[in-house]
């Protein structure tokens, strides 16, 4: 694997992985290798020896870049072209040409097919990885297309038409088409259970919200029931597929929990009158349901009584806590150049940009907060994003009126673990699918990583302007795909060494 990587044109970085807080303060890598740019490696070794390699950049458009579910391939769209690469070598395996610029792209669950949707044209094209000559084109006609997705079996395509008139289910096995009427246009109106056997769909009939549960196997309508919502905003299956969480629009704080068989298990409402639920997320263990709301709090419900067990607040001033507050501090490039010394004269372009590092702040700390305009709809306040780590141990949250900060909560201690404050607003944060490790980006040329051991910011060593807009983890957690505006770059993390060290 490593040799393969080396064969491709890489430049790698030994970056710090700060195992302890004290190490964080010294982000001064000592140079242990010779610096090259493109086609060679320069190595920087730190105290832990965690290595980070960065691939060269590739073009992409519309941030369309996805790793196949089996983790072997990388599909990217460049205008109307679909490029499939081997993830290990990054060599192009297939190249497909679509009819127009692709607006949505998705791998089938078996990693054999790729769906490319062109919403403006109302077209969907499906490509086979095994049979490059095989082709499939679905034309939704003049009815229009706003959303297209695979069914979990990878043999059906669900297209939502314009104005949410209906959902068309196309079978690639039989060419059969079926329709689902009355889908509701809302935040998250459709969700498949994790094992792919059931689909929950929010509907609106006779001015009433209802939910249909389909068996994905043959699109048999298993259950259909009305919900006690004013204006259903979203639904989400618990990871074990037995409980469906349904929440009302922000005008009313209401979360309903339905069993797979349509029984109402519980209703939860924290308060009345003011704006309510903003985000909902299940823990991977299905034990906890985290609800982020406009009152800047996260409430955690348990899976036995469906009552609140804890409430996490996001205060502007952090004090009286055992949490570590990391603050990103920018360094002037001049100093940086001194530090990086003579060895890397060739890689100026990246080094001239501002460097930054995390510093641990002593409490109390004031987190910069924006006061939202009360006269405008959808105020920028409250917890909009919630994410549990893969082991359900940590919960990361973002409060919209403190856009530069990410809060990490420990679900065992039920307390605040860390706060990461950045110089820019956080664009995207995602947990490593295998370890408790959080990657995030703020729209600059840096990748930020948090793990229980510490926190680090890494400059992406790429020539030219590369601003990380979003990122995606590889399913094995060994690499992250960094997506710029029109480019992408892979960051490989050599976690084997790390794990050895941890052992």
């Amino acid at each position, binding site marked *: 694997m490593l040799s393969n990587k080396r064969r491709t044109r890489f430049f790698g970085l030994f970056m710090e992985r700060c195992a302890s807080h004290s190490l964080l303060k010294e982000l001064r890598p000592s140079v242990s290798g010779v610096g090259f740019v493109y086609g060679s490696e320069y190595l920087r070794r730190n105290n832990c020896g965690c290595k980070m390699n960065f691939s060269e950049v590739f073009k992409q458009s519309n941030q369309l870049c996805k790793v196949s579910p089996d983790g072997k391939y990388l599909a990217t769209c460049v205008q109307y072209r679909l490029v499939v690469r081997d993830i290990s070598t990054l060599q192009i395996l297939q190249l497909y040409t679509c009819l127009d610029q692709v607006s949505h792209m998705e791998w089938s669950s078996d990693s054999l097919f790729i769906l490319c949707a062109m919403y403006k044209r109302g077209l969907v094209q499906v490509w086979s990885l095994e049979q490059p000559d095989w082709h499939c084109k*679905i034309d939704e006609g003049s009815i229009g297309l706003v959303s297209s997705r695979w069914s979990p079996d990878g043999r059906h395509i669900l297209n939502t038409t314009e104005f949410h008139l209906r959902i068309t289910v196309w079978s690639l*096995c039989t060419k059969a088409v079926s329709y689902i009427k009355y889908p509701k246009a809302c935040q998250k109106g459709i969700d498949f259970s994790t094992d792919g056997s059931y689909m929950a769909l929010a509907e609106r009939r006779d001015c009433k919200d209802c939910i249909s549960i389909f068996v994905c196997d043959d699109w048999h309508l298993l259950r259909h029931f009305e919900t006690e919502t004013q204006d259903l905003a979203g639904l989400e299956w618990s990871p074990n597929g037995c409980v469906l969480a349904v929440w009302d629009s922000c005008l009313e704080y209401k979360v309903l929990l339905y069993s797979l068989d349509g029984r109402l298990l519980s209703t939860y409402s924290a308060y009345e009158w003011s704006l309510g639920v903003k985000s909902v997320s299940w823990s991977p263990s299905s034990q906890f349901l985290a609800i982020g709301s406009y009152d800047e709090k996260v409430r955690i419900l348990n899976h036995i009584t469906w009552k609140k067990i804890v409430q996490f607040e996001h205060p502007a001033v952090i004090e009286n806590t055992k949490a570590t507050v990391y603050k990103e501090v920018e360094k002037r490039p001049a100093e940086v150049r001194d530090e990086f010394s003579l060895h890397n004269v060739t890689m100026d372009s990246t080094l001239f940009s501002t460097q930054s590092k995390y510093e641990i702040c002593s409490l109390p700390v004031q987190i910069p907060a924006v006061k939202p305009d009360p006269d405008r709809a959808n105020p920028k306040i409250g917890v909009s994003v919630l994410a549990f780590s893969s082991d359900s141990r940590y919960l990361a949250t973002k409060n919209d009126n403190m856009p530069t900060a990410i809060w990490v909560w420990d679900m065992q201690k039920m307390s605040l673990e860390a706060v990461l404050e950045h110089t820019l607003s956080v664009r995207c944060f995602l947990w490593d699918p295998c370890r408790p490790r959080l990657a995030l980006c703020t729209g600059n040329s840096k990748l930020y990583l948090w793990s229980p051991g510490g926190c680090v910011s890494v400059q992406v060593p790429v020539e030219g302007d590369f601003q990380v807009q979003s990122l995606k983890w590889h399913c094995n957690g060994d690499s992250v795909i960094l997506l710029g505006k029109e480019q992408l770059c892979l960051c490989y993390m050599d976690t084997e060494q790390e794990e050895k060290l941890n052992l």
Partner: protein
Amino acid sequence: MPDSSQVKDARRCSVECGTPPLRHFSQSSLALPRNSQSLRTFCTEHNMQECLSYIKQEVSLLSLSPFWTELDDDSQLNVVAVLNCMYDLIQLHHRSLRTLENMEMEQLKLSSYVDNLKTNNTHLKEEVELSKRQNTGLLERERQLHLKLKSLQSSLKNEKDEVQKLQNIISSRACQYNHEMKRRERELNKLRERLNQLLADKKERKQTIDLLNNLGRADGKRSLWKTEKTEAKHEEEMYRTLLSDYELRQRELALENKELRKVMQQIKKEMVSILKSRKLALKEEKQELNGMQTASDDEENEVFDSSKESLELFCIHAREKLTNSIRLQWRRLKSHVEKLDSQDKEEMDRLKLEIQQCKDFIQTQQHLLQRQLSSSIDQDSASLQNDGLMLQEKMHLSEEWKSLEEQRRIFERERRNYTEAAIRLSHERKIFEEDRALWLKQQFLSMSPFGNSNQPHLLKSASALLITETEVGSLNASEMPHECQSVLVSPKSRSVSLTSSSTADLESALCLIPENGSSEHRKSELFEDFNSLHENVPLLRKQWKESKDLSSHSLSEENSTS
């Protein structure tokens, strides 16, 4: 006070009672003598009898012993009786005087008291007035507050009404809004339906799928017909998943329960062991007490026994028993621990006291030891101390030396300053000497045989001198400033001369000025002063005019002043 006043009243009454006969008598028989009292004496040889009778009457009225009776010799008065009577009278008089005095005093006191009361009264009246005013003010305020309260209450009521109204409006609007929403939604649905229909009917661009060849199912199976069987199968599947989930959860819970039970057992065991050990200790005491506690003992035993039993039982009854026994044991343990705590505290206090005592003891011992040591090793320590003292002394001395050195330097500097000052002084004295010489010269000149009237001559000579000097000045301009300086340098000497009181001195001092040849302006000033000081101004002017004639230098300013 009131007593005395009563007494006084009584007296007054008695006096009044006593007066009518007296008045009567005086009016009837003593009209004459009374009237003539101012002209002549009360008793004459002629009216002796009348007087006697009058006096007798008076005396009897005063209830004194009569000094004269009919029985006695007519012509001769009983002198002793008279004297006694007089004495009595005098006594009476004294007494009455004294009472008068007392009464006056009393009167004074009373009047002052009355004054005091009056002032008090006025004061109180003022106070009453003030409090009345305050009261009215407060009443006014209360009234205002009442008004305010009323207005506030009314406004509150209004607000409440307003709120109610607004709530009604809101609810009605919400109702309306909901209705509208529903209407719109229905409309939207209709439109959607219609759109769907239209799009379905439309020929030009239909929904199509263009597939090279159909794919097999992901699981490789053939798709099945939709039958009731499949439906049942789906239901079955669903319930199976649900059931498996519940089973899983139950297993988890059972596991957790087991763990908890284990923990509880352990706790129970420990509790029992603790309590048993205590019980054994207590048993001995109990045996002494005997009998009474046997019932409770049994109970306790039962508790312990039942706990053993209940560990194996998991039914509801057992649970109740178990929890009860646990609770009981827990309570006992708690009390036991509390007891232990209190015992511990006592123990601690005792130990602390002991420690304190020990400390004190040690301290006294140390003290004694030290004293002993100090007495025994006095000689050794003395030498050491001496050394130390010597060193200290040395240090002290060096410090002193330093300070002295400093002082010496200061003295040196001062000495230098002093010599400089002396030089300056000698220089000044020299200048002064010169001045004096000049002055003496003038004095000498003034005393010369030409001067009966010394002033004009002096002035003349001065002006002459001035002229010569100015001439020199005009010729040799470069030397002028020097002269000026010299004049300016010695203002003291001149001021001294000016301050000398005698007019002659003053004049001469003034006369010096032109000689010294300071500015003309200055001269004029000085002359003005001079004018004001002197009375023989015209003379002076005349003389000045003469001098002007003599002088070739024009003294325009002097002219203007004159």
